[in-house]
């Protein structure tokens, strides 16, 4: 167990803990903020795995855009300061059971599928933008183009959702 392993495990604990707090806190905006902590810990995890570009993109997109969108959505509809009495739907034990079952299934699948797969992490600079660009835009071009269609769908959905009239 090197220092990096220890830090990685700690970041994982922080991510899981913050995620638990997201669903158990009584205040809506605090839930969004704990989500930020969870995403930040994920970004730290990416850094530990030398995926630098992905880590900063995680901060830029997830923390900087997605949670801002969530906050805007919360603030535009109902932004009570203090506890919301109706945030608890009463299913917490069923939800806990389902969450644990899903986690169990996922962990089992991952461990059994990838237990012997290792990737070398000591190649310097592999996670930077240039190696990523070279591989995405020369080998993985089709998923990249399909992604543009996904973005198109997202934008059309955003307009439909907010129902702007021409």
């Amino acid at each position: 167990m090197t220092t990096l392993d220890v830090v990685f495990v700690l970041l994982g604990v922080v991510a899981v803990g913050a995620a638990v707090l997201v669903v158990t806190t009584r205040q809506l905006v605090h839930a969004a903020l704990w989500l930020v902590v969870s995403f930040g810990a994920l970004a730290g995890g990416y850094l530990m795995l030398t995926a630098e570009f992905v880590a900063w993109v995680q901060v830029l997109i997830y923390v900087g855009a997605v949670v801002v969108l969530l906050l805007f959505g919360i603030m535009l509809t109902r932004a009570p300061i203090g506890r919301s009495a109706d945030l608890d739907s009463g299913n917490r034990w069923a939800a806990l059971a389902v969450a644990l079952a899903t986690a169990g299934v996922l962990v089992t699948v991952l461990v059994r599928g990838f237990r012997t797969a290792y990737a070398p992490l000591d190649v310097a600079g592999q996670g930077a933008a240039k190696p990523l660009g070279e591989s995405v835009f020369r080998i993985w071009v089709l998923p990249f183009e399909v992604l543009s269609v996904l973005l198109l769908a997202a934008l059309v959905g955003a307009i439909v959702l907010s129902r702007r009239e021409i």
Partner: protein
Amino acid sequence: MDLYIPIIVLGVLAFGFAGFSVVMGALSGPKRWNKAKLEAYECGIEPTPQPVGGGRFPVKYYLTAMLFIVFDIEIIFLYPWAVAFNRFAGWFGLIEMVLFIATVLVAYAYIWRRGGLEWD
């Protein structure tokens, strides 16, 4: 990983400074309680009562944030492409990005026509 140590050091320094300032500001000031200081400031008049939960705000802020996400995702694809641009051979690298940007521009034109970029 050694490249990140200065960032952490400066982050801790900045956090300590900001936290210390905020706490010191709270401690080193008088505390004269006045009922008017507890209310929201509205240029001196008593604040207009707001509906429960803050009322309804326009949805265009949400739409702007949504647009920001999609175009930010486009930009994070533009960055590795631009950095690796000199290593592409032929016109392939350019064409694939033109297709990508064209698809997103179709969405952009749709939003423009549907009034998503109007801010009244």
